[in-house]
C-alpha cells in the first residue's frame, strides 16, 4: 500500500533532520506508477561546472557598498558584511559600465526597464518590448545545459508585471524562459506530482505523444503558416517529455539542506508585490530548491531574480518603507535617512545571496563542494540607484568554476570598462569560445581567464 504524501509534507521532507545535511529520503510516494523513482540525475558527471545568474534591483548606495581598498586585503563594506565567511569564494568587480542600456531610449524612457533588459543580454530593450539578444545564461545553457532534465531553470521571487522585466533569462531576444515563482510548482518540476492529488496513473506522456504527432501533421497540412510558432510548441512538448521522464537513481550529491518549517505560498499576486508578502522565507525556500536542482544534477544552468527592476517592495521588517513606491522610492532618496534605508535593504539582499552560497558550499561534491564547482554572476540593473546610473554596476563573481577562477579580491577597473566584457569572460570561464558578447563585449578580463 502506498502512502500518499501531501505536497507540504514533501516540502518539509526536504528539510528533515534539523541542523544537518541529509540525503534526500527516497519515500515510497516519490515513486511513479512503474515503481521508478521520480527525479533523476541524468548525465551529470560529478564536479561539472554549474552556472547561475543572480539579480537584485534598484542599484546600491556607493558609500555603503564599495570597499575603499582594492586587492586581496580589502575590508568588506557594510553591505557586504553578510558575505564575510565567503571572502575567498568571490571577487568584487568595480568600474563596469552598461553602455548598452543607453540604447533604444525612444522605445522606453524608463532607465530601470532598459537596465533590466541589459542585465545579462549585452543589449537593451528591443522595439517589440522584449530584449535585443539572448542572455548569458541561455547562451551558456545551449552548450552546457543540453541533455539535462532542464536545459536551464530560471527561478524568481518577485516580478510578475507581465512584461519584459519579469525575466532575466532570454533564450533569444524575444523568447523569455519564464521563471518559476511558485515553490510548489518548482518542487513538482523537480520531484514530480505528489501522489493523491490527481490520477492514479499519469497519462500526461500519452497526451504529449499525441500532441507531438499532431503538430507534425499540422505542419504538413498547412503550407503557409507560422512554422516558427509550431516549432516552438513542438520543442516545448519535447522539453516537457524530458522533464516528466521517470528518474532512475539519485546521485550521492543529491542532498538537501536542513530547513525550518517551510511556509509555502501559491502563485504570487498578479502585480509586483507592494506590501512585503514576498518574505525572505519564501526566497530561501526557492533558493533551496534551486540549489537542489544543481546538486541533484537536474540542471546545470539557472537564474535567480530576487525582485524585478524598479521593484517597489516595502521592507517593513527593516523599517525601510516609502509611500507606495517602496524600495524604488527609497533608492532615489538622497537624504541621509533614504540612504540608510537603501543600505539596510541591500544588506538584507546580500544576506539572501549569502544564504545561497552557504547552501552550495555545504554540499560536498567530488572532493570539493557545489559552490567550488559553480560559477555565479551577481549584478543589478543600475549602479547608484538614485541617479539611474549605468556605470559602476555592482558585480560579484562567485564560485571557482571547478578551480578555474581564483577569488578573494576587490578589483577596480577604469571607469567605463564595458560590463559586457565581464559577461564575455564568464562565457570563456565556462568553456565557450564566443568571440564577443553583446554590443560592447569585445575583450575578456585577464583577471579571470
Amino acid at each position, binding site marked *: 500500500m502506498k502512502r500518499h504524501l501531501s505536497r507540504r509534507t514533501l516540502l518539509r521532507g526536504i528539510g528533515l533532520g534539523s541542523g544537518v545535511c541529509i540525503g534526500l529520503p527516497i519515500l515510497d510516494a516519490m515513486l511513479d506508477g512503474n515503481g521508478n523513482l521520480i527525479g533523476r540525475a541524468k548525465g551529470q558527471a560529478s564536479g561539472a561546472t554549474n552556472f547561475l545568474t543572480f539579480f537584485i534591483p534598484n542599484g546600491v548606495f556607493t558609500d555603503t557598498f564599495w570597499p575603499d581598498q582594492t586587492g586581496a586585503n580589502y575590508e568588506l563594506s557594510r553591505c557586504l558584511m553578510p558575505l564575510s565567511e565567503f571572502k575567498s569564494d568571490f571577487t568584487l568587480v568595480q568600474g563596469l*559600465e552598461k*553602455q548598452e542600456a*543607453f540604447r533604444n*531610449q*525612444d*522605445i*522606453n*524612457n*524608463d532607465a530601470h526597464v532598459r537596465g533590466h533588459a541589459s542585465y545579462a543580454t549585452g543589449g537593451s530593450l528591443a*522595439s*517589440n*518590448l*522584449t530584449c535585443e539578444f539572448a542572455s548569458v545564461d541561455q547562451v551558456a545553457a545551449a552548450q552546457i545545459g543540453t541533455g539535462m532534465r532542464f536545459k536551464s531553470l530560471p527561478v524568481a521571487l518577485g516580478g*510578475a508585471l*507581465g*512584461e*519584459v522585466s*519579469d525575466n532575466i533569462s532570454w533564450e533569444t531576444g*524575444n*523568447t*523569455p*524562459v*519564464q521563471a518559476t515563482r511558485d515553490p510548489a510548482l518548482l518542487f513538482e518540476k523537480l520531484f514530480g506530482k505528489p501522489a493523491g492529488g*490527481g*490520477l*492514479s*496513473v499519469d*497519462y500526461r506522456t*500519452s*497526451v*504529449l*505523444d*499525441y*500532441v507531438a504527432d*499532431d503538430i507534425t*501533421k499540422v505542419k504538413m497540412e*498547412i503550407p*503557409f*503558416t*507560422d512554422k516558427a*510558432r*509550431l516549432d*516552438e*510548441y513542438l520543442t*516545448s*512538448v519535447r*522539453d*516537457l517529455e524530458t*522533464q516528466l521522464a521517470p528518474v532512475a537513481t539519485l546521485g550521492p550529491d543529491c542532498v538537501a539542506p536542513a530547513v525550518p518549517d517551510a511556509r509555502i505560498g*501559491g*502563485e504570487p499576486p*498578479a502585480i509586483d508585490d507592494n*506590501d512585503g508578502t514576498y518574505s525572505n522565507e519564501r526566497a530561501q525556500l526557492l533558493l533551496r530548491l534551486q540549489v537542489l536542482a544543481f546538486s541533484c544534477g537536474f540542471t546545470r544552468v539557472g537564474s535567480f531574480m530576487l525582485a524585478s527592476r524598479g521593484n517597489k517592495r516595502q521592507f517593513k521588517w527593516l523599517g525601510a518603507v516609502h509611500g*507606495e513606491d517602496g524600495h524604488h522610492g527609497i533608492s532615489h532618496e538622497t537624504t541621509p535617512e533614504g540612504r540608510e534605508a537603501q543600505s539596510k535593504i541591500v544588506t538584507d539582499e546580500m544576506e539572501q545571496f549569502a544564504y545561497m552560497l552557504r547552501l552550495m558550499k555545504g554540499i560536498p561534491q567530488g572532493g570539493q563542494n557545489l559552490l567550488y564547482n559553480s560559477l555565479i554572476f551577481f549584478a543589478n540593473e543600475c549602479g547608484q540607484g*538614485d*541617479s*539611474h*546610473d549605468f556605470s559602476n554596476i555592482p558585480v560579484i563573481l562567485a564560485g571557482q568554476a571547478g578551480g578555474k577562477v581564483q577569488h578573494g579580491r576587490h578589483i577596480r577597473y577604469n*571607469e*567605463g570598462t564595458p560590463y559586457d566584457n565581464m559577461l564575455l569572460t564568464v562565457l570563456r570561464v565556462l568553456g565557450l569560445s564566443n568571440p564577443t558578447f553583446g554590443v560592447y563585449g569585445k575583450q575578456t578580463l585577464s583577471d579571470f581567464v
Partner: protein
Amino acid sequence: MVKPDARPRHKLLQFPLGAGVAMLLLTGCGATSSDGAKSGNPKGPSTAATTTSTVPPAMVFPPPVIPECGTPITPGPGLLRRLTNEEYIRSVRDIFYLTPDEVSQLQPLLQNDGLAVGNIAEGLRLSPDHLRKYLDVAAKVADFALSTPERRAKFATCDYGAAGDPGFQCRKEFSGGLAYRMFRQALPEMRVWDLEALANRAVPSTTDPDPYRPAKLMVQGLLTSPRFLLRLENPTALASHGWKSITSWDLSVRLSYMLWGTNPDEALQLTARSQQLNSAGQIADVTRKMLVDPRAKEGIGRFINRWLGVELVSDAVRDAATYPEWNDGLKVSMQAETARFMEDFWSKPGLNLLDAFTAKYTYVDDNLAALYGLPLPGPTLTRVDFAANSPRVGFLTQPGVLSASISQKELVAPILRGKFIRKQFLCTLSLPEAPPVVPSPPQDPNLTTRDRLSQHRTNTSCEPCHQLLDPVGFGFEQFDAIGRFRATGSQGEALTGAGQVFGLPGDPTFTGPGELAALLQGSEEVSACLAQQAFRYTYGREPTSADACTITQAREAFKAKKFDLQEMIVAITTSDAFRFASYPGAL
C-alpha cells in the same frame, strides 16, 4: 569613454514644442491621399498612387505612430495565435457546458501568462511551463465534462465509455463531433483515428477502473492539440495579385474570437460550412447579427474594457487605512458600471460611441452609490442622472476609469492621469528620456499639489514631457484615488479642474472634466486612435505602414456613420485585410 551626455536625446526636443507635439499626434490619412483606399476592392490591391509619404520615424512604444495611408494595402499573412487564457476558458465553457463554479476552478490554474498583453499574438507563448498547465487544466475539464450522463449528453450524441463496447459508429460520432467543435472545422478522417488511438492507450484497470478514462484521455488530447490551442489558419484559395482568400471556416473563427471572445457556435459553424461567408456583404450581415448577440458583450466588452483601462482595476492596490471601502466587491462594481454604461453607446446599431464622453448619467449599485454620495438603490446597477452642474460626466469620471489610471499617491495622480489620457485616447505616449537625476518635488506638506508640481513648468529638463501630462491630468483633480468627489485640496484650496491639452489644435484650455471630455469627443485624434486600437485588437499585432489604409478605412467609416462603433467593426471585418492573406515571396 562615451559618457551619458552623448546619448541621443529624443527627437521631440529638436522641435519647437508645438510642432513636436503635433508630430507625435496621429493625424492619419489626409482627405486626398485616402481616396484610393476607400474603394475596398475585394479583387486586389486598391489603385491608390504610391506616394512618398512624409512619415515620421517609427516610434514603437506604445502605441506606434501610423504613417499616412499612401501605399496600397497589403493584407498580412494568416494568423497563428494561441488562445488567450480568457479565450481558452470561454471556449471550453461553451463547448462542454461548464458551470460557473467549474469555470472559477479553472481560472486560477491559468493565471500569469508571462509576456502576454491582451490578445497580442507575440506574447502568447507556449513554453513547457504553459504546456504543463494546459495538461493539468485539460485533465480537470475532462473530469468535469464526462462526470455524469446528463453532462455527457450535452455535448456528445454517443455515450463513449458506457458499459459494453459502444460500437464503431458511436466512437466516431464522439470523436469526430468533438473535433468539429473544438478544432472549429471538420477534421480529416485519418486524424480522427489518431484520437481514437490516443483513447485506446487508457485501459481501465484495477488501479483506475473509470470506464470513461479512454474518453477523458481523448478530451485531454483535443484540448492540448495545436488545432485547439492555436488559431491555425489555412488560406488556400488563390485570389488575384498573389493574395489568398481566408476560408469561410477561418473567417468564422476570426469573427467569433473578435466579436464574442469564444469558439464559434454551431450556428456560425453551419454558416461557414454552407459557404455563407464568402462576400463582403455576407460578412457584413453576419457581423451585424453577431454584434447584437448577447455574447458580443463579452467579446467587444473585452475591447472596451481594455480601451478604457478598467481591466487594470482588478490589480489596483489602495492603502486600507486611507480607503477602507476598497475591496474586491467594489472593484467588480466599478468594472460592471463602466461596462453597462458603455453598452448604451455601442451594443445596438446607430448609437454614437463618442456620446459616452459627455453623457450626464451612469449606473450605480449600493457599493458605488456610497462612493457617489447617492441614495442606495440596491445590489443591482440602476441608472441615475446627474444634475447639469455635476462635475461627473461620461465614462471619464467613473470610479473604475479614475482608479485604473492612477496610483493612490496624490502627487503623481495628475501625471499618471495625463499619461492615461494621452495613451488611451490620443495614442501618443513616446516621451523624452527622464533626466538622469530626477529632482524630488518639494516635500513641503503645506504646498498644494499644483504648487509642488509647478517646477515641471520651470525646470527645462522636466517641462517637455510634463507639459503634455500634468495639465491634462489636473482636469481630474476633483476626484481622489478611488474616484470620490472632493471640492477642496489638501491645503483647503478650491479645486477647479482647470487644465490644457497641448498638441490638440490650438492647445485648448479647459475647466473641469466636462470641458476636457467635450474637447476629446470633438477631436479627430480620438477616432484615429480608436481605429488603431481596434486594428491591434482584431489582428493581435502592431500595425505597420502596410496597414495604414485599413486603419484609415475603419476611421472614416466610423466618422461617416456618426461614430457608430458597430459600423467601424463592420468596416474592419469586410476589409481586404480581414478577408485575404498575403505571403511575401510565396504564391
